[in-house]
């Protein structure tokens, strides 16, 4: 079937049934249930080790009150990294290329951190709007800038993830189209483009993991500010 350039970004349908929910829940199918055994098989041991180390890492700078977010942040990380990595497979739909999904992750979580900060320690939370050591004339301007920065955060979170992944997918598609076209026309250039394609794939693998990590890391930083 002839695929257009943006077909990968359309919600998949099967006989009129939207498969979006399945696409988003797909990571759940790929992770085995932790068992009671001390010694597990390799996949479970690898998963356990990854989740444990990630949770330790992300919760290190947070104080004890914020540790309630451990499950949420870890689950979010696993979900995002799996969605991103699965999207690199051919003919797959990547939900995280859709802005609504990412905004759906970013806005509630960011808002939660802000509200927690304003509820528990309002002075400190508002104090973040003025960095320490600003000279007196700059104070009004800086407060406005910091407020705008605060409100831009969810959009930044969502759009960062969307843009990175969508751009990456688009680049992959473009380069592979180019390679396919050049296979007939100019074969040596096709080799070149396929080399670039290989490098891009490595980059995309890295980006998939890093963007997921950055998303969760920034959320944990916002949480750290506000708890």
């Amino acid at each position, binding site marked *: *079937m*002839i*695929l257009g350039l943006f077909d990968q970004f359309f919600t998949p349908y099967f006989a009129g049934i939207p498969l979006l929910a399945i696409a988003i829940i797909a990571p759940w*199918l*790929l*992770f*085995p*249930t932790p*068992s*009671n*055994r*001390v*010694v*597990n*098989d*390799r*996949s*479970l*041991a*690898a998963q356990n*080790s990854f989740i444990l180390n990630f949770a330790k890492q992300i919760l290190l700078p947070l104080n004890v009150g914020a540790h309630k977010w451990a499950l949420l942040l870890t689950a979010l990380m696993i979900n995002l990294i799996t969605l991103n990595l699965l999207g*690199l*497979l*051919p*003919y797959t739909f990547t939900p995280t290329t859709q802005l609504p999904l990412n905004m759906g992750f970013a806005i509630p979580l960011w808002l939660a951190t802000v509200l927690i900060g304003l509820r528990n320690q309002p002075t400190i939370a508002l104090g973040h709007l003025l960095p320490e050591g600003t000279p007196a004339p700059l104070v009004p301007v800086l407060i406005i800038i910091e407020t705008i920065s605060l409100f831009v955060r969810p959009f930044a979170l969502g759009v960062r993830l969307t843009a990175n992944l969508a751009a990456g997918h688009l680049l*992959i*598609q473009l380069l*592979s*189209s180019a*390679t*396919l076209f050049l296979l007939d026309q100019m074969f040596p250039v096709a080799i070149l483009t*396929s080399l670039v*394609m*290989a490098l891009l*794939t*490595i980059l995309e*693998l890295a980006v998939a993991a890093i963007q997921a990590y950055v998303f969760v890391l920034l959320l944990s930083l916002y949480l750290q500010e506000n708890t």
Partner: protein
Amino acid sequence: MLSRVIAVSASGLKSSAPLGAGLVQASRSLHTSSPSLAPVPPLPEAGKVRHGILPEEFFQLLYPKTGATGPYMLGTGLSVYLLSKELYVINHETVAAVTIGAMFIYGVKKFGPGFAASIDKINDEKITWIEEVKDQAIACYADAIEEEKKEQWRVEGRSMLFDAKRNNVAMLLETNYRERLHYVNHEVKRRLDYQLALQNLKVRMEKEHMVNWVEKNVVGSITAQQEKESIAKCISDLNVLAKNVKAKATA
């Protein structure tokens, strides 16, 4: 490997199969009964695969009918059919698939053994840690057994200890008794010696007194005449004796 997990819903891999995962999660989340404390059976052996994703059972299934090259012919024929009939259209996704497939295979080949070794190391460390606890507990108990045996041996010697103590006490009592006896002896002898000395003294004093009295009387009874006569006798005796001696000397 993941396709195998999804494709093969073996009961032995219940904990890792996706449907099995859901079922296990569902029953465990309700906590209707306490978890079984029976020892778990060992993990099943990982399924054998050929070329990383095709299960060995598939090849064994086709072997009787089509021999060793059967599955490969099937694969080739199937792909040629799909491509030639344009049931699978080669488009840009194919190139992307080839690229990512190559990356995946390269990654697994290069980092697979290292990663597996590190995971095995994690498991081995867990086992070592637990066995260390077990060994320490066993060593602790062995030491306790040794100590207990020693205490039992000590208890056996306890009667000897009591005998020795009893002997000691008896010796002390005996010594004390003998000392007192000796003391009594000594005191009685002292008193008797005193009485004896007293009697001796009395007898001696009587004797002396008598002798003194007799001497005094005798000396008092000697008159002057008797004294002169006795002295003249003595002198004549002495002369006779002297003459005798002189005669003996010259003879």
